[in-house]
């Protein structure tokens, strides 16, 4: 049942992406609400999937990596719906929904029951949830950064095309970028701290410097510098956009690190 809901959600997201993309590349405003509705229905199915996974037989088991990814894309869509509701920027869907799909497909591609984590302690739940929430913040900052760079390029080259007219103002995107990092960074910090505590409880040492942990620390440092630069020496606008795109690459590498090592350090 959960698998069926998952498939339905995935298919609806794919349809929504096609719809959002054709909205963004055509003059007509017609598809905006259609795309949004499809996304919302997909989100409902996705929610059911998550609830079933949480209350299902495996509820006592620790979160698997695929669950974490599914939760990540669920949050992405939630943020999309909230921003849409508040600012009516439909073009955002063309960027965020594909991101959610990539993560969902990775979640589906992973083997169903890889017991990567020992049923250790409650702290593991906090670690996974907080890290994923932080990642969501960086993902939104990444999307805002990409949109910023596109709009910047269009304005500089004076290409007043359809995408130009649908993309929001530069300072809105810069603000979205900043907000996402300001929210994401403390969450990631807490995620790393709880991760270290879990490691300590499971294995007796906080850090073991495997690729996953190394990348996590690199990512954390990177965003720390980005945030500091923005607040003190004006690393905003185009530079901030570039930096968040690079930063998200670090995030991806960390996640790949987690995947390859299968969280081995903890088990």
């Amino acid at each position, binding site marked *: 049942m959960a698998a069926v809901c998952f498939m339905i959600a995935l298919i609806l997201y794919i349809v929504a992406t096609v719809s959002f993309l054709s909205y963004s590349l055509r003059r007509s405003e017609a598809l905006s609400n259609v795309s949004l509705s499809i996304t919302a229905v997909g989100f409902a199915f996705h929610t059911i999937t998550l609830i079933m996974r949480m209350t299902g037989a495996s509820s006592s088991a620790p979160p698997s990596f695929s669950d974490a990814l599914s939760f990540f894309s669920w949050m992405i869509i939630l943020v999309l719906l909230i921003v849409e509701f508040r600012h009516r920027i439909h073009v955002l869907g063309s960027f965020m929904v594909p991101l959610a799909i990539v993560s969902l497909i990775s979640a589906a591609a992973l083997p169903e029951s890889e017991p990567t984590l020992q049923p250790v302690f409650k702290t593991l739940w906090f670690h996974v949830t907080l890290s994923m929430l932080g990642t969501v913040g960086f993902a939104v900052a990444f999307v805002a950064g990409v949109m910023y760079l596109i709009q910047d390029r269009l*304005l500089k080259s004076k290409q007043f095309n359809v995408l130009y007219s649908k993309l*929001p*103002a530069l*300072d*809105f995107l*810069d603000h979205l970028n900043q907000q996402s990092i300001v929210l994401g960074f403390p969450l990631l910090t807490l995620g790393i701290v709880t991760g270290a505590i879990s490691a300590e409880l499971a294995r007796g040492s906080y850090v073991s410097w495997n690729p996953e942990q190394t990348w996590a620390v690199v990512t954390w440092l990177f965003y720390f510098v980005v945030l500091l630069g923005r607040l003190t020496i*004006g*690393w*905003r*606008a185009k530079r901030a956009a570039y930096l968040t795109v690079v930063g998200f690459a670090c995030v991806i590498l960390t996640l790949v690190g987690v995947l390859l090592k299968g969280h081995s350090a903890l088990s």
Partner: protein
Amino acid sequence: MHLIVVGLSHKTAPVEIRERLAVPESRLGEALARLCSYPGVKEGILLSTCNRVEVYSVVEDVDTGYGRIQEFLADTHLSLSSEQLTPHLYWHTGDRAIAHLFRVASSLDSMIIGESQILGQLKDAFEVALAHKTTGVIMNKVVKKAISVAKRVRTETKIAEMAVSVSYAAVELAKKIFSNLHEKTVLLVGAGEMAKLAAKHLIANGVGHVRITTRTPQHAVDLAEKFGGTAVPFDQFKDDMASADIVLVSTGAAHYLVGAEDVHRAVQERMNRPMFLIDISVPRNIDPAVRHVDNAFLFDIDDLKHRVEQNRAERMHEAEKAERMVIEEVTMILDWMKSLEVTPTIVALRNRVEDIKRAEVEKVLGRLGHLSAQDRELVEGLASSIVNKLIHRTMVTLKNEINSSSGPAFVEAARQFYALDRPAASTQQTETYSESSRYLADSRPQSEADEPTPEPSVPKRAR
């Protein structure tokens, strides 16, 4: 009754003629009263703007109507003779007149397609006509429809969305850099007409602070007062640039006043907050190399013009959609106008009652099989005479009112009373029939006992 329009616009008459023909607001009432005093002119509206003077009117006869309105126009403007006027006039009647009004209201006939003033002007003209009671059923309906068509065009097409003037294009671009112009500062360097206009648009769109600098210090002070801003000494404006989110340059200088280095410094001082620079001067006053400065967005007059051209083309494209809407709406209102003609209404009314009568008579006779042929004829005759008497007054009134100004109102009333426009009426009738047959069935024993006279039952059934 015919709807006609006689008038001239920027498409047919030069400004010398238009300005002489324009009717000042104070004289509109008097002019309208005179218009409707012409024999054969039933209703009238006078639309007088700087780009057009048009008389919309409901007249008895099209050709006499044209003549009368031309006469009226020449009389209103004694400085113009009929001969001078006629070559510039256009005449439309029927669907073309309505389509013309719809196009005018929707700003499809305007000098700048999609501008919004004309709708307000039409509303004003309509209010004046209402105040002077020079409109009737037809004009009221058609003008109200024109206003709603115009609104539909504005909401369902993007005809009015995009900037089609250079000064407004600057505002549109500013909104792609700053989502909210409040709290933003514009620095006006030099005071060319177009720059002033752009500054005015920016202020109207919320820009909070205005700083102005010109070579003549007094000029800057005067302008600052006018815009509610601050004057900045000309030799210091480059240092002031960092505080400006929008820099609008238009001076007569023959060289670059602002170099890439200046902008680079300003952006750095602004901690990389984006800067929007508009150079409306020819020759240019901002070094084009500014394009390579990050977070500074420079647009010169050609960029703005290019944007305007694009938007114009886009508006033309949207106008095609709007034209299709107009055609659609004209068809609908024509149907309504046709329904206002007396003869078809009389025919429809006669058919309607005839149908009702026949159906009722057949039902009754079906149940009274024992009647002789003579009696049957009597029953039929009775039904006919009641029905005819009932609608007699309506018919006579309609015929009498054919040419009066309230004619259309009577026709409209008759159509509503007898539900002549409702195609669903047939189903309603069936219901009435079945009801009446039930009534008949119920009352039968009683009728037999009471030696029935058909009079009381027939009107009841006709209800």
